[in-house]
């Protein structure tokens, strides 16, 4: 992965070299190994390179043979060797061995249809010199980020694009303001949803889409869309048959991601099923000891070290664990926000930031991870909730049906006092079986409580903007006829996977230190397979990721296969208030809060007092989320205003 940026001035005026240089330089953490600029009348492309494939001749921006087409590319095309052979057979002549050049020739041959044939992760810009046309494109699920904006220029407009918004702010014409609607989405879905970003005037290209700019027009299209089959469309085959197919597909996806690299590839090993499966698969493709990395937490509540050690011992990997304390998280949090460039409702990105630094310092710059498995194969509690809420909604008068909630959350059995209150909150919210967001309403309603902390003017603005309604209007045609689990997966993949897990907690934390993540569970063939599976093979009864466990029962120890699902989490308020970092006192100082204008100073002060009194320990789920959201938003606002 790398950093890309560029400017297209539709008036044909020369692009300022200083701005292009500054934009490229601001992305140097994404590509510390080389920086390249290419420009001609009205256009300039920048590239910060992380060298992974074709170390010798893969520098960018790169052109085709007659320099009629130029590219700045961030990412990988894992099937580039197969595509290259095919293009050579069609008469194309290659001057490098890189995957980047395959895109140039593939686009020449097939236009935007070529993106559908690429198996990979990317954000790219293509400039057609003859047509004076800029095309931006992003991978199917949003692994690689891509933002763009436009500002008026003399006789036209400047279109600017970049891997990260911070590069766009290098142009003095780009406003440095938070977008209230972006905040509303962040405080509902835990993230903005492309095309919206949290910055006024800056758009994020949605996954699976391209956009083409010419001197007088702007045209958008999609080459892929996340879809699920009609509820009644049952794919034939038994669990055993589907499991065999899943296994073959995941093995091939992992092989491509492990072997297609000219530098060593390591793996993250979290102690969960997903990374255990991918690491076990990798073991078959190398005689060398696999290098694995993991996070350990000083706070035992969050630590998964026991499971990690179990897998390390089984696979015999060369393993290193980074131990993270609450204080580490608190101290590094401003850097994390600066990289994420979004409000954060959890601190879980901070340990990932520290881990990628550790990986890079250990001499690695590519890691395979298990991200995407939960979303594609049905691993989250919110999906099980979708099934349970649907079951109860079909007979809301039933006294027996609500009892099933005890199977979802076994801790309720140990704490009967909590059960009635929890059940009330769980079932009283929008239990309408026709609601396409039946699964996600409780989470969204809980998160949107953060908006009560905003200043009254902003609150009024939010009353006119319902982020959830806006999102639901974008669901594909026919989604009403999908299985409730499929609808829940679409919502989760569109919001939290693309906007948070692959972004704020994924690409942005990895690339902060020039480390590329590779995600076998997001391979296009695997995504196609997973979305077509009968829902019961994603979640059988209430058993999550049923088919994955079935397919890989021989590779993963029983203790890991059958362990209670534990989402990756990190301490939130405890990271800020056990041992208060210096930056915190400054940012919540009353005068600062008033100047900021985003939050209601009294409401924030009251929340902070509560956190201080309890030293961040034993806070409610909402308070943990709210304090993290407030602090990250204040940091983001200050960092954005200060960009120069």
């Amino acid at each position, binding site marked *: 992965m790398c950093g890309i940026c560029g400017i297209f001035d539709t008036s044909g005026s020369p692009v300022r070299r200083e701005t292009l240089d500054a934009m490229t330089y601001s992305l140097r953490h994404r590509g510390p190994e080389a920086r390249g600029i290419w420009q001609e009348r009205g256009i300039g492309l920048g590239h910060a390179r992380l060298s992974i494939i074709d170390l010798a001749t893969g520098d960018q921006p790169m052109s085709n043979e007659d320099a009629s087409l130029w590219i700045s590319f961030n990412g990988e095309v894992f099937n580039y060797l197969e595509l290259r052979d095919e293009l050579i057979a069609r008469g194309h002549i290659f001057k490098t061995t890189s995957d980047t050049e395959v895109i140039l020739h593939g686009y020449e041959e097939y236009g935007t249809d070529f993106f559908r044939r690429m198996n990979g992760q990317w954000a790219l810009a293509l400039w057609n010199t003859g047509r004076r046309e800029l095309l931006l494109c992003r991978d199917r699920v949003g692994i690689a980020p891509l933002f763009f904006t436009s500002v008026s220029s003399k006789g036209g407009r400047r279109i600017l694009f970049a891997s990260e918004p911070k590069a766009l702010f290098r142009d003095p014409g780009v406003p440095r303001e938070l977008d209230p609607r972006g905040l509303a989405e962040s405080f509902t879905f835990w993230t903005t949803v492309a095309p919206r970003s949290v910055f006024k005037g800056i758009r994020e290209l949605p996954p699976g889409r391209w956009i083409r700019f010419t001197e007088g027009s702007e045209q958008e299209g999609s080459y892929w869309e996340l879809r699920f089959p009609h509820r009644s469309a049952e794919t034939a085959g038994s669990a055993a048959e589907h499991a065999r197919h899943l296994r073959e597909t995941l093995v091939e996806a992992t092989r491509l991601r492990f072997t297609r690299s000219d530098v060593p590839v390591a793996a993250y090993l979290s102690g969960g099923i997903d990374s255990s499966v991918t690491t076990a698969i990798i073991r078959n493709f190398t005689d060398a000891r696999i290098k694995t990395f993991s996070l350990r937490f000083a706070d035992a509540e969050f630590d998964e070290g026991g499971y990690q050690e179990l897998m390390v011992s089984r696979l015999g990997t060369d393993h290193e664990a980074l131990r993270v304390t609450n204080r580490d998280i608190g101290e590094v949090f401003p850097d994390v926000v600066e990289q994420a460039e979004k409000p954060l409702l959890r601190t879980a990105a901070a340990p990932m930031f520290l881990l990628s630094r550790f990986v890079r310092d250990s001499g690695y710059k590519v890691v395979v991870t298990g991200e995407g498995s939960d979303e594609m194969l049905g691993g989250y509690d919110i999906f099980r909730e979708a099934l349970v809420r*649907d079951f109860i909604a*079909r007979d809301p008068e039933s006294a*027996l*049906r609500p*009892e099933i909630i005890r199977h979802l959350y076994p801790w309720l059995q140990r704490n009967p006092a909590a059960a009635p209150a929890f059940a009330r909150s769980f079932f009283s919210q929008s239990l309408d079986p026709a609601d396409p967001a039946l699964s996600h309403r409780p989470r969204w309603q809980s998160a949107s409580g953060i908006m009560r902390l905003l200043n009254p003017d902003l609150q009024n603005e939010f009353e006119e903007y319902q982020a959830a309604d806006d999102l639901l209007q974008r669901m594909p045609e026919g989604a009403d006829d999908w299985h409730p689990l499929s609808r829940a997966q679409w919502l989760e993949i569109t919001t939290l996977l693309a906007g948070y897990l692959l972004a704020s907690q994924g690409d942005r934390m990895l690339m902060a230190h020039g480390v590329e993540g590779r995600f076998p569970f997001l391979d296009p063939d695997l995504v196609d397979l997973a979305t077509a599976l009968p829902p019961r093979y994603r979640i*059988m*009864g209430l058993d999550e990721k049923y088919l994955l466990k079935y397919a890989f029962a021989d590779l993963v120890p029983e203790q890991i296969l*059958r362990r209670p699902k534990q989402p990756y989490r990190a301490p939130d308020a405890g990271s800020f208030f056990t041992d208060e970092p210096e930056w915190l006192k400054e940012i919540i100082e009353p005068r600062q809060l008033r100047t900021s204008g985003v939050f209601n100073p009294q409401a924030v002060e009251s929340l902070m007092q509560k956190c201080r009194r309890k030293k961040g320990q034993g806070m409610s789920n909402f308070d943990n989320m709210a304090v993290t959201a407030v602090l990250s938003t204040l940091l983001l606002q200050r960092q954005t205003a200060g960009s120069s």
Partner: protein
Amino acid sequence: MDKTAIDNIISELREMQKSRDCPEIDLLETAMFLEDVFGISLDESEIDTSLLGHRADLSAFISCKLGDS
């Protein structure tokens, strides 16, 4: 849906429940599964052990509900 297909699906459900060290069939989970997979809506009186307690009974119950027997 033919009887073999029903038997296979119920076997998969039971195998899953057994693998969780759940010796007795989980009634509510099974009821939810029946509604979801076979479209059989159950009322409270039908969710009892005599109907849903064993694989063979379950298959017969489903066939009966689907009008196959």
